[in-house]
């Protein structure tokens, strides 16, 4: 799969498969990410897989000290060029199926009517459409544990709010265009909020703090306000 390898400053390198949201490209990102995670090259500090790119954060001090004569970017690119062809179309580990309860009660869904207005449908139809399909987790970003999922039915794919809210409660489920996501922490945010989950998307003290990971397949199912409140109380 053709890709472009370029530096992001002197501290990072990007492998970019194209500015497109595409399950095939995303699978390639996950394959390369998994390989570099399991077979780390020296001088790599962190890996940030996204929709169709993988950003590699370098430990520049270590690279410059280990190979004083060789520019780190060239050295990395040579290694990546050698590695990438073997990872073409390599099957990636099947993502988990995760079912996420969402309460779509109007008291927890301040933008449900806006999305309904955008779609020209009733809010109950919006809920049915949102909960009625499986979403792929393309990447985690923005906040610890924030999963970018897609694709939302085009009829309810309302664009971001013109003015972001300064505080979105943790657990809020949002729509931004054809993406859907869940705010893991209270934070500012511009997505249309159509419900809330009682699950903790990011729990710092779990062995795996993030509930979701790229490649997972997510389904939402509607729960009542009572069920939501009950689940919020049980840790």
């Amino acid at each position: 799969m053709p890709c472009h390898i370029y530096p992001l400053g002197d501290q990072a390198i990007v492998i970019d498969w194209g500015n497109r949201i595409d399950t095939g490209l995303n699978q390639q990102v996950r394959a390369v990410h998994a390989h570099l995670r399991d077979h780390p090259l020296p001088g790599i500090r962190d890996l940030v897989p996204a929709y169709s790119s993988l950003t590699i954060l370098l430990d520049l001090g270590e690279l410059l000290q280990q190979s004083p004569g060789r520019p780190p970017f060239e050295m990395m690119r040579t290694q990546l060029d050698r590695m990438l062809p073997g990872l073409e179309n390599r099957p990636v580990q099947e993502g988990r199926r995760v079912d996420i309860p969402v309460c779509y009660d109007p008291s927890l869904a301040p933008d449900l009517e806006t999305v309904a207005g955008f779609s020209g449908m009733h809010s109950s139809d919006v809920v049915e459409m949102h909960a009625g399909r499986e979403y792929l987790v393309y990447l985690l970003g923005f906040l610890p544990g924030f999963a970018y999922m897609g694709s939302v039915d085009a009829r309810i794919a309302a664009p971001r709010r013109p003015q972001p809210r300064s505080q979105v409660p943790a657990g809020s489920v949002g729509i931004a265009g054809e993406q859907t996501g869940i705010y893991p922490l209270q934070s500012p945010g511009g997505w249309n909020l159509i419900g809330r989950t009682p699950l903790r998307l990011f729990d710092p003290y779990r062995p795996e703090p993030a509930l979701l990971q790229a490649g997972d397949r997510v389904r939402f199912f509607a729960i009542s306000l009572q069920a939501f409140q009950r689940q919020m109380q049980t840790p």
Partner: protein
Amino acid sequence: MSLRILKAGLLDTIQDQGRYGFGATGLNPSGAMDPAALTVANLLTGNAPGTAALEMHFPAPVIFFAADALFALSGADFDPHLDDQPIPAHTPVLTRAGAILTFRRPVWGAWCYLTVHGGFRLTSWMGSCSTHLAAQCGGWQGRKLCAGDALPFQGYPDYSGLLPGKGHRLFPWRGAAGAVYPAEPVIRFLPGPEYPLLDEPSGARLETSAWRVARQADRMGYPLDGPLLALRQPLELISTGVIRGTLQLLPNGRVLILMADCQTTGGYPRIGCVIGADLPVLAQIRPGQRVRLQCTDLPAAYQEYRAQQQTLRQLKWGCIFRLREAGLLDRAPREG
């Protein structure tokens, strides 16, 4: 055996070299805004370079030493006073229990680091002691310090023979990494992936304009005040990884430089990225102060980074030699 906050500063947090390895979960590295100053302060107190330190902004806190301690300040100069006597930055200070450290005015820089020999006793979270303010984790209870907090010391060496008379003791050698911070800061950047898409005046303006760090500057990013820039044509970008130092072009035409608490991914055009050697310099520029941007290339960036690392390595050996000579290292713990 601790240092107590008598009065909180504007933003005092525990920071180390950062939390790496969790980018795939959206967990950003955090860490010291000025990594070079963190290193200098640690070296001056005989610690490993990335040991967690107290990072302070101005107004800075009032600090009470509940035990004898060897400490150092580096980074910003907030006119530090120990028991009402001025003390220099970038110098190890041996203080007696009961001393009070205050900061009077912001003379230079934005972020000051305080280290104690042996470090603070903290619980690491996900491999780092840096405070993650958004996740409310790491550092000191996942938050900025408040009045009444007591940061315990990791070790408690007996300095009694080294503290003559009543006051503190300064060690007459400065460990300033002066070469890191030029008097007239010019921040060098490498063109980012979307740099070629800037329209013609914007590309030139990036380098010719007198920018200022905007008032909204914080640990997440430094927005710049200056001309509005534009791309030749509108561009819809999907999210990609971003790093500290990335120059983003916001939808309103402003330039934002991402800093230590920036998120892991972003969807705004990456018009440039500040070179690693200039991140400490940039971090220390205060809101309202002028900054110039200058385009450079990878070989120059590597050379600057190597030179900076070399300066810090030399400082390390110098510090170890002098601290040992002064009898400050490997002291027996205090009894009782």
